[in-house]
């Protein structure tokens, strides 16, 4: 397994896959392994990369960092990850999932089948971004893939569970959005005054549980 590294800015180092055998699951693990690098303030996982943000006083040279990263990579291959599993109750359809019928029509499934497929899958939190606490989830069943709306909504309610093309996610806060809204959860995904502030983090596993009553 190999990575390639280059400076994104003079204080942030971008790591990308350097070999075919690289797996997306390794990014959160490598992020954790890099926490002890000198002056490393942030380890930000992306869909296909990892950014190490150093404090402005750092004195790292790329040529000196590479062996340190290599060393951490070697330890990764020996690791077994045991990510957390979070089960998120979702009220599917109705006024909380106004695009459920649209998804059903596009995929040729019944709304009940959409709910069943969506809630049976196990998803991986690939990374967080776009909004505080917004998790990019991998593992949407291909049969559920539905194009984004032609016109994004000006306001998607907080907690909306949505499908956009071949991805699924939850909007932590209300925002404009162009994904298909199939349900809603009342579990808070982001609270700036809570510790930790976000429910999810990169590397977690997620399951959606169809709930009947309001939570």
């Amino acid at each position: 397994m190999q990575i390639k590294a280059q400076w994104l800015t003079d204080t942030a180092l971008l790591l990308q896959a350097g070999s075919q055998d690289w797996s997306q699951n390794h990014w959160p693990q490598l992020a954790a392994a890099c926490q002890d690098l000198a002056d490393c303030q942030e380890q930000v996982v992306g869909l296909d990369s990892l950014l190490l943000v150093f404090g402005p006083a750092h004195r790292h040279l790329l040529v000196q960092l590479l062996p340190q990263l290599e060393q951490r990579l070697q330890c990764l291959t020996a690791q077994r990850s045991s990510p957390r599993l979070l089960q998120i109750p979702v009220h599917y359809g109705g006024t909380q999932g106004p695009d459920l019928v649209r998804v059903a029509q596009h995929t040729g499934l019944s709304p009940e089948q959409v709910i069943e497929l969506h809630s049976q899958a196990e998803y991986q939190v690939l990374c967080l971004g776009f909004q505080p606490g917004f998790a990019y989830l991998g593992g949407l069943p291909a049969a559920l893939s539905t194009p984004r709306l032609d016109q994004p909504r000006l306001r998607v309610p907080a907690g909306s569970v949505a499908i956009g093309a071949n991805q699924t996610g939850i909007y932590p806060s209300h925002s404009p959005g162009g994904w298909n809204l199939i349900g809603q959860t009342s579990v808070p995904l982001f609270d700036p005054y809570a510790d930790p502030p976000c429910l999810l983090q990169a590397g977690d596993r997620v399951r959606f549980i169809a709930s009947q009553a309001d939570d």
Partner: protein
Amino acid sequence: MIKLLKPGWQSLIQDLGRAGYRHLGISQAGALDRPALLSANLLVGNPITSAGLEICGGGLQLEFEQPGYFALAGAYCQAYLDTQPVYPGFAYPAQPGQQLKLGQITSGFRCYLAVSGGILTEPCLGSRSTDLNNGFGGLQGRALQAGDRLFCHPANIPPKSLEQGLRTLDFQRPIRLLPGPEWSRFDASALQIYQQPWQIRAQSNRMGYRLKGPKLRLQSQLELRSEPIMPGLIQVPPDGTPILLLNDAQTLGGYPRLASVIYADLWRLAQYRPGDWLHFELVDIALATQARHQHLQYLQRLQALFDD
């Protein structure tokens, strides 16, 4: 307490921003001109982590409701404490009932106000900075409005004063860039980022400056997914219009990354407004590193001036 009489064009409570939360999608926020806020805080004897006001464009008017000290730093504007002129780079005492009135900022764009003891809103995620997009931090996550009252402690002991005022840094020099990860994926049009000046469009804010100039083109189509981005990065969407990201930008983005502003020059971006022209020059990592350490040494010398 301080009472806002007029907020000016946009005034925000900011400190040095949030660090350590980008992996959760939480932006840095914080003062765009860090040296200016730092200077203002030093002048009133505050820790450099104290929160102050970032005043964009000028026009702020406030009333002190208790005794204290204040200082302005950053862009110059005509300012009065009642009828007494006050200048950036100096600390002044204020008595209850006195009013501070700022005129329009004509050179630069942002100045910073520090008060003794700092503005004391409830910290959020380790910082008092305002996250405008997500509505938290600072005062209710929003720009200040007339009638707002800001909590701070009264102070009667004067801060250490210097023989001379603190000089405002010169922002009007070319902004130095490092090539980005996708630099070589652009065609020769990319060279124009430093071959000519770029005008800041009206649709610009603390998330980023949209730059007006020739379209920048990739050699061939490039599909990028959502990857980590940073303030200072210049990304180029499919329409070819570069966007220079600032502190309130999102933490992930999917556009090609042409170049980034070096750390030592980030503060200068705070002093440009829509309609202004930005001049860039390309440097390498060695020069960027040297400039960064020189910049930090300057900040350390500043702090040393106020040490006992």
